[in-house]
């Protein structure tokens, strides 16, 4: 194995020096480093505390020169490696680390130049050629002008063993889970088959296909059929719950308008309610915002809740289906004036197999006790809430909420679904991003929106016949394709897209850049998700960016104020600017205009700048307003910075620096960011 391979395989993190407190990367106490002069290691005046520290460390320490030759070691290192100090002093560090070579040292030196630690997980070779797993943190040690490298070796044999045992347990559990899931699926098939046959024959006889049936026989057969249906429902519920609980149930979230679902549910249940002389009301506003959900699953929840209301509410009862927009969610209520639920039962009603003492419906048959548990799982996965309020003898009100998300959240939910699905099947997920890059970014022109829509249609056509499970999500001008993480799947999808989009070259190809996020076994799904979101963040934050950012500039010196306005105006960032010399006006503007950034001079004629700052920050958060304070007095600045102000400038200041700070506070540099253009290989 070459040193580079070793690094690729084992170098898990390179930690910036500034980041302290990382357990895996111990720092050398600064005091010790500073005390050391250029003298030979052990002969210097400060040698005693240095040796004491070195010997007291839990880790083995090896100090080498820049070329990797070992200069000094502590007792621990000798214990680990079974060499004497003399023997070690004739060795290079690359003789100690299995698979290491000059490349490794080069990487270490490069990382050190960039002020970063290198953390290596590798095997260390003992004198007797046996090895032990170790975690090795490296750092520079400035003892002489040439500089030294310092290796902290931690024996992780125990941890490795525990890790292995854990991995074995995990894979065994996964296997068991898979076996269980297969068992459940097979059992369902086995149970359904005879049930299908019974059901079919009974209905054939009942419908007179096998000869005339008397009324009495018909009644018997109808009872058989009804119970067949019930048994089928039971099997379905057990399976549904099993699938949802094990995470193997697929959720296909799309934009759904709940008004349609509610109308459908009202329509479906009207005949059943009429049969029982119940009144079924539907109350909702004309329009509700879309929510990202699996429409079929939410319909299942509605069916379950309204079905229960229909079953348990006596004749002549009233059932009301109600929907409304709460703050950032849609709330749906199903209310009845039935017998109600006792307080002690309300808390456990959503648990599986809970059947309440008086839960017999009109036909005397009990439910499966699973319906509400399934509802709860479905709503949980949608990050909503489901609850019940009830007064015995008065009625019950079940309600659930579904959050209204931003595009970013929508995507997160979408990708989480896919991750969960692929993970349950032990498969990898990859992501392909297609973006229509508008030349006049950050503003999206209507033309590019059209192109994105067309792109989506084409890509959908291209991918629809794909055998792999491929999923599309469109946000603003970005099209996200989630696909199976195998190379075949990736190349297949890329080739298909190329073929279809290539035909539309003039219209579309110019506007697209592609990014591909590799699936990596070394990453956890959570890390992968985080990376995907980081990649997409600038792309998904669309419409909010189309309005120009607002900057409120407050300074009592009119000439400086004008200069600041001019500098920002000429910066080409397309900012919306407002300026005032009065603290009072500034407060009014702040409340009405809701700026993204306030440039605030602390010395104003009417109100003290600090009080202006106070009153503004107390009214936050309107949106995330940033503050850049300006003053001629360092003391005032320090005081306000302590209060958490974002940035400051001390007068007199350089206007370029001012413009730069404004840009940085408004994140202007990161805005028009097309994604990195790493295009997947095509066959």
């Amino acid at each position: 194995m070459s040193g580079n391979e070793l690094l690729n395989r084992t170098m898990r993190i390179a930690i910036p020096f500034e980041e302290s407190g990382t357990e895996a990367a111990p720092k050398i106490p600064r005091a010790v480093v500073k005390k050391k002069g250029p003298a030979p290691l052990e002969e210097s005046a400060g040698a005693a505390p240095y040796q004491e520290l070195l010997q007291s460390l839990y880790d083995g320490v090896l100090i080498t020169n820049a070329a990797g030759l070992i200069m000094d070691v502590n007792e621990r290192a000798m214990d680990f490696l079974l060499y004497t100090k003399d023997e070690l002093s004739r060795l290079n560090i690359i003789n100690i680390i299995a698979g290491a070579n000059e490349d490794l040292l080069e990487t270490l030196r490069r990382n050190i130049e960039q002020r970063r630690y290198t953390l290596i997980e590798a095997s260390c070779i003992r004198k007797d050629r046996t090895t032990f797993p170790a975690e090795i943190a490296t750092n520079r040690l400035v003892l002489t002008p040439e500089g030294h490298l310092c290796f902290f070796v931690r024996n992780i044999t125990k941890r490795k063993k525990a890790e292995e045992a854990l991995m074995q347990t995990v894979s065994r559990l996964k296997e068991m889970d898979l076996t269980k899931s297969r068992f459940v699926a097979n059992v369902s098939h086995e149970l359904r088959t005879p049930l299908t046959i019974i059901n079919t024959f009974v209905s054939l006889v009942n419908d007179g296909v096998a000869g005339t049936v008397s009324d009495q026989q018909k009644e018997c057969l109808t009872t058989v059929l009804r119970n067949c249906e019930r048994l089928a429902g039971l099997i379905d519920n057990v399976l549904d719950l099993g699938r949802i609980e094990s995470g193997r149930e697929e959720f296909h979230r799309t934009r759904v308008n709940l008004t349609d679902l509610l109308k459908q549910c009202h329509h479906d249940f009207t005949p059943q309610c009429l049969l029982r002389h119940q009144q079924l009301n539907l109350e909702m506003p004309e329009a509700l915002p879309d929510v990202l959900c699996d429409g079929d699953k939410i319909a299942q929840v509605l069916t379950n809740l309204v079905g229960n209301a229909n079953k348990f509410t006596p004749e002549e009862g009233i059932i009301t289906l109600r929907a409304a927009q709460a703050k950032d969610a849609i709330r749906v209520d199903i209310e009845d004036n039935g017998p109600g639920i006792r307080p002690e039962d309300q808390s456990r009603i959503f648990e599986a197999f809970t059947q309440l003492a008086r839960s017999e419906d009109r036909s005397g048959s009990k439910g499966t006790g699973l319906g509400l548990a399934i509802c709860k799982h479905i709503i949980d996965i949608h990050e909503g809430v489901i609850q019940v309020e009830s007064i015995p003898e008065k009625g019950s009100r079940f309600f659930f909420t579904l959050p209204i998300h931003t595009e970013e959240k929508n995507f997160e939910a979408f990708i989480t679904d896919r991750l969960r699905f692929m993970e349950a099947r032990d498969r990898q997920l990859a992501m392909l991003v297609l973006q229509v890059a508008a030349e006049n970014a950050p503003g999206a022109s209507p033309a590019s929106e059209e192109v994105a829509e067309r792109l989506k249609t084409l890509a959908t056509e291209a991918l629809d016949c794909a055998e792999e499970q491929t999923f599309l999500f469109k946000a603003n001008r970005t099209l996200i394709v989630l696909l199976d993480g195998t190379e075949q799947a990736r190349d297949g999808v890329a080739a298909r897209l190329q073929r279809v989009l290539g035909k539309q070259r003039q219209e579309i190809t110019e506007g697209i850049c592609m990014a591909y996020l590799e699936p990596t076994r070394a990453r956890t799904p959570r890390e992968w998700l985080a990376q995907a979101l980081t990649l997409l963040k600038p792309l998904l934050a669309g419409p909010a960016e189309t309005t120009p950012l607002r900057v409120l500039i407050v300074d009592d010196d009119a000439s400086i104020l004008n200069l600041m306005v001019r500098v920002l105006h000429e910066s080409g960032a397309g900012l919306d600017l407002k300026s005032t010399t009065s603290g009072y006006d500034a407060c009014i503007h702040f409340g009405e205009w809701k700026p993204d950034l306030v440039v605030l001079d602390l010395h104003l004629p009417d109100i003290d700048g600090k009080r202006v700052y106070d009153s503004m920050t107390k009214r936050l958060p309107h949106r995330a307003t940033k503050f850049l304070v300006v003053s001629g007095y360092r003391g005032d600045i320090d005081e306000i910075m302590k209060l958490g102000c974002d940035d400051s400038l001390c007068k007199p200041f350089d206007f370029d620096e001012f413009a730069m700070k404004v840009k940085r506070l408004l994140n202007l540099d990161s805005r028009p960011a097309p994604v990195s253009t790493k295009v997947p290989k095509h066959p």
Partner: protein
Amino acid sequence: MSAKIFIIEDESDLIKALVMMLQSAGYQTAYAMDGINAADRVREEKPDLIILDICLPGSDGFEVFQQLRQDPATKRIPIVFLTARSTVEDRQKARHLGAAGYIVKPFQWTSLVKLVQEVLAAPGPVDRQ
């Protein structure tokens, strides 16, 4: 002459039921009980429509489907899947392959007969429960 329906299904009791319901609706029937000889039997019988189970001994219903589609003699016969498998994946696969219908067990015999009538009247993809 009435249309002929060919059933490929491994449960003999279910075949009995299917034969009974289809004959009562006025169709002729023939059947095969595994996937291995199904294609040969279909060539002999020249049916107007095929009802095909997915879980079959010997070879899976999707394979039988492909086999029937590759043979010029049978590739135009509409095929309706009748299966206990109800996942979205299976439905999608059936649709992509070009199935004329997809019915999940347990089913209402009247709705099966209705689907058969519809497909025979206008062969094309229909997806229903």
